[in-house]
Each structure stands twice: as structure tokens, then as C-alpha cells.
């Protein structure tokens, strides 16, 4: 009985700690306005992707040939029925943008998960095992980094045929090496520390040392890397779809919409512009959050920020004559 009460108290204590941690994190986020805006934008995008059927005013694939190439609502011939205008088949641009967010976020998340997991496992293996495992894995990574990735992707896409799955596979194959390198170097640094040595002396198994003692130390650099990679993948998916090697026509994708708009660039500027803005905002938001993450996870940077804050406070105190 007493034990149960004790453990439940412990548990709630831990939850309070987490809550406090979360609160201080959000406070810090609030202080970095750019990061805060980025986070808000990402939240809005996620909401948009999840609730696409509720938010989209029209079916993204519904054609209306009488309302072809309508300009956005604020220009002279525009209608409020199609706020961002329509394309060459009379499809609603706004609805296509809303549905397109699903593809970008899905491909980004899938590639980051697959490439990240594989890269981290390889990096952990190389760094922890060392010796021959290490040299084989690192040679592999070096060789693959020296490959012209996109061109190999082109050959694979040409032979297998483009689809969302092929795009995810190709981008994952090309993107895991960064995680591997970073994890390995971090593991090598952490391995030397006393607590890892202590864990080994106490008799922890290899996987316990790796997952309980080493991996948690890599969380923040890996998270920052994953976020940066997410931005890169969103751009890469858009580029592949633009080239006609990514998402294929019945489906919607921002890159694909830019490609179709390209043929009407002289008559309908909004067809190219709108999906491009959507891609740019998404990637910018992710980049803003990534640069905020890098700042708060780097102790040196935090120290600098702290010093700056103290200096401001002192100056203020002097100015008010206290």
C-alpha cells in the first residue's frame, strides 16, 4: 500500500517535472519570435493536412471547364468562389494547395523516419563496435556520399516508374548517410566519458549501454538534423514532382502543380506562384524552427544569450539610476 502511494507520488512528481520542462521550453520559444512563428506555421500546416476534407472549399480533382483559368478573387475577373483562382481544367487552386500539403508532409515524415532510423542504427553500430564494422560502414558511407545521388535516383525512377513509394525509397536511399556520420562521431565522443565506462563496468549489456546511456545524449543534435533534413526532403519531393518523376497526375502535389502551371505561365501567373509560395512557407517555417533548436541545444549559444540578457538588464538598471 505504502509503496504504491509512494510510486504514484513519484510518478506525479515526474509528470510535474516534465510539465515544468515543457513550460520553460515554450517560454523560450516565445522569446525567439522567429522560431515561434515557424512553430505556429508548422502547427497550422499539420492541421491543414489532417483536416483537408473539412477545410477545402472544393474537391481538388473536380473539373469545371466553364470556370477555367479564373484569376484569384482580388483581381478584376476573380470570384470569391475560387479564392486563389482555378487552373486550366477549372480545378480550385486553394483546394489543391490544401490537399497538396498532405503529400509534402507525408513524404517528408516518411523519408526522415526511414533514413533517420537506418542512419542512426548504422552510426551506432559503427561507433560502438568500432574495428572492422566501423571501417566497412564508413567506407560504404564515403562511397555513397561521393555518388551523384540525384542522377542515380533518375535511373531508378526511369526503370521502376515514378510513384509516391518510389520517391520515398529513392530519397531515403540518398539521405541516410548524414545521420550515420553524425551519430558515429557523437558516439565516439560519448564513449570516452566516465558514465559510459561505469555502465560497462557494472555489466550493462551492449544494447542497454547504447539505448539508455548513449542514445539520449544524441537526441538534440539528431532532432535538429532531422528537422533540417525534413526541409530538404520537402524541397526534393517538390523538385522531383516538378520534373515529372515524383507524384503522378491524379494525385496532387505542390511541385506537380507548379509543373502544370508552367505551361500557362504567360496567361495565368497564379498557377505557378501559389504552390511555390506554399512550398517556400513550409520550408521556411521548418528552417526557422531548426535554427531555434540549434540555438537552444548549444550550451555556448545559450551562454551568449544569457550574457546578452544580463547586459541589457544592467544597462536598464543604470539608466533608471538604481
Amino acid at each position, binding site marked *: 500500500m505504502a509503496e504504491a502511494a509512494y510510486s504514484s507520488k513519484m510518478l506525479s512528481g515526474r509528470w510535474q517535472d516534465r510539465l515544468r520542462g515543457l513550460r520553460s521550453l515554450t517560454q523560450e520559444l516565445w522569446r525567439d519570435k522567429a522560431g515561434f512563428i515557424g512553430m505556429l506555421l508548422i502547427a497550422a500546416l499539420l492541421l491543414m493536412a489532417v483536416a483537408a476534407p473539412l477545410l477545402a472549399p472544393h474537391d481538388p480533382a473536380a473539373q469545371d471547364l466553364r470556370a477555367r483559368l479564373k484569376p484569384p478573387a482580388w483581381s478584376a475577373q476573380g470570384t470569391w468562389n475560387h479564392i486563389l483562382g482555378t487552373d486550366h481544367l477549372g480545378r480550385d487552386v486553394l483546394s489543391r494547395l490544401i490537399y497538396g500539403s498532405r503529400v509534402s508532409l507525408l513524404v517528408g515524415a516518411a523519408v526522415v523516419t526511414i533514413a533517420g532510423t537506418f542512419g542512426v542504427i548504422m552510426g551506432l553500430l559503427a561507433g560502438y563496435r568500432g574495428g572492422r564494422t566501423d571501417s566497412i560502414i564508413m567506407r560504404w558511407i564515403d562511397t555513397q556520399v561521393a555518388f551523384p545521388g540525384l542522377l542515380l535516383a533518375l535511373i531508378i525512377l526511369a*526503370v521502376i516508374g515514378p510513384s509516391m513509394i518510389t520517391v520515398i525509397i529513392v530519397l531515403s536511399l540518398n539521405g541516410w548517410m548524414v545521420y550515420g556520420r553524425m551519430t558515429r562521431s557523437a558516439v565516439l565522443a560519448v564513449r570516452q566519458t566516465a558514465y559510459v565506462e561505469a555502465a560497462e563496468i557494472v555489466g550493462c549489456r551492449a544494447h542497454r549501454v547504447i539505448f539508455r546511456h548513449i542514445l539520449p545524449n544524441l537526441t538534440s543534435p539528431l532532432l535538429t538534423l532531422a528537422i533540417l533534413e525534413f526541409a530538404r526532403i520537402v524541397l526534393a519531393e517538390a523538385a522531383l514532382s516538378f520534373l515529372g518523376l515524383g507524384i503522378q497526375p491524379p494525385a496532387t502535389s505542390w511541385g506537380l502543380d*507548379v509543373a502544370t502551371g508552367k505551361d500557362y505561365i*504567360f496567361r495565368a501567373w497564379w498557377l505557378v506562384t501559389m504552390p511555390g509560395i506554399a512550398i517556400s512557407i513550409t520550408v521556411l517555417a521548418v528552417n526557422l524552427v531548426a535554427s531555434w533548436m540549434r540555438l537552444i541545444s548549444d550550451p555556448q549559444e545559450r551562454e551568449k544569450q544569457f550574457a546578452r540578457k544580463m547586459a541589457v538588464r544592467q544597462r536598464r538598471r543604470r539608466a533608471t539610476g538604481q
Partner: protein
Amino acid sequence: MGRYILRRLLHGIIVIFGVTIIVFVVTRMVGDPVKVMLPLEATLEQRAAFEKQLGLDRPIMVQFVEFMGDVARLDFGDSLWQHRPAMEIVFEKLPLTLVLTAVGIGLAFVLSIPLGIIAALRPGGVSDRSTVFVSLIGLSVPQFWLGLLFIVVFAVQLHWLPTSGTATIAHIILPGLTMALPVLARLVMIVRSSMIDELNQQYVQTGYAKGIPFLRVVGLHALRNASLPVATLVGWETIRAIAGYSVVVETVFAWPGLGLTAIQAIEREDLILLQAIVFSVAVLVVMINILMDIAYTLIDPRLRLA
């Protein structure tokens, strides 16, 4: 030094070998080249004849040895689309891609040094923060879209510049700018951060204390020490430009280089030409990698020992 270069050359050959194997495996074993290259309504006899022409009716190991021999002689066969040797097309298109890359990377490099240094002189200041913000935007805008925006603004609205073709110097301005801007954004960031690191070093203070002029301290002493990460990134961006950005930029501006040709080869299901392009670009990338490694040792004498 000689042994180091030899080792890099060996690694390069391994990479090229790897590319060749992957190209072979992907085209012959994962996919069916006959199905990709012949039209759907081709008869069985046509298929068999085509298989024989490509040598696909023989055992896979024989095919592999043949393929490696062809690659070594730079003979990939005739392009199915243009009916002439694939390597001939590659050599015809390659200079255009190299010109575009040189203009783009050169422009980015020349602009990034002063911009990065100005930002680094007062970290956290107005010029620094605006540089970082503009660079972040530059990193976030998709390159193909940037090119299309340039076309809308400078060609469609203002009629200042041509949108496609290679006839005059004016034709390279828009593709070159499109190539340069994302690279510039990344380069400015790295020049800035490595200059900030160097300007905080004590030798900079010593330089000022000795009375060396400001420009000499920043432009000669600090810049030289900051140049290693910058050179690394320039090398990387050159590789990415040749083996990646060029495909996108050339497609947007109909610039008839290797990148556009690769896309056209895919559209026309010409695997022979595509193989030749991928192989040539791989060789080029490996060569740039080796040149980069040699350049490091010239910039930083400490690396010569390694």
C-alpha cells in the same frame, strides 16, 4: 602527398566501379530494359531481336563483363532516341552544363565573401540579422520556382531578358542567377559563421594591436583561416550543381545541357543515353572530389601530414 593523391584516386575508381555496378543492376535486373524502351505493341520477334541487339539474351555474368568492357572503352552504344553514339551526345552537351555551373557557382562565390564578412563584423547587428534572414528565405525557396518567378518578372512582365536558348550572353543571366541564389544563401551562412569564429581569435587582436590595417587583418589573416570550410562547401555545391541543380535549372530555362538531356532521355525511355550521362557525371564528380582534397592541402598545410 603523392601517396595521399594515389589513395584518393583509388577511392575514386572504387566509386566509379560502384556506380557502374548499380547502373547495371538497376537497368538489367530490377527493371526490364526491353519493356522500358520498346513500345507496348512491339511483337515478340521485335522483342527478341532487340534483346539480341543489346545482348540481353546471354547469361548475366557474360553481360556484366561485356558491360564493364564497354564502359572502359566509353562505348555505351547508340542512343535510341538520336541514333548516334551516346557518348557523342554527352560530349556535345557537357560544355553547356559546365558553363552554367561555372557562372552560377562563380557568382555565388564572389558575392558570398563580402556579404558574409560584413555580416560577421558585427554579429547580432542589423546587417548580420538581415543577411541571415534573407539567406534563410533563399534556402527555403525551391529553385525551379525561383527560375519560373524570374521568367514571369524579367521576361514576361518587363521583357528585359530572354527565357530560353543559348544564343547570346543575355541568355545565361537568368539561368545563372537561378543557379547562384540558393548556393549564395548557403555560402553566405558558412562565410559568416567561420569569419565570426576567426575574428574572435586572439591573433586578430594581436594584429590590431600591432597596428596592421583593418582591411589587412580581416581580408588577409582572418579570411585565409576561415577559407577551409568555405572551400569545402564550394566544392560540394559544385558537385551538387553539376549532378543535381543543373537538371532543374536546365529544365526550367530549356538550357540544352546534360541535365535537360537526362530528363529528355527519361521521357523518351532511352536508357542507353541515360546510362552514359549518369556514368559521365559520376566520373566528373569523382574528379572534383579529388581536386577538392588536393585543394585542402594547399589551403591548410597542417593537412599535408595526414
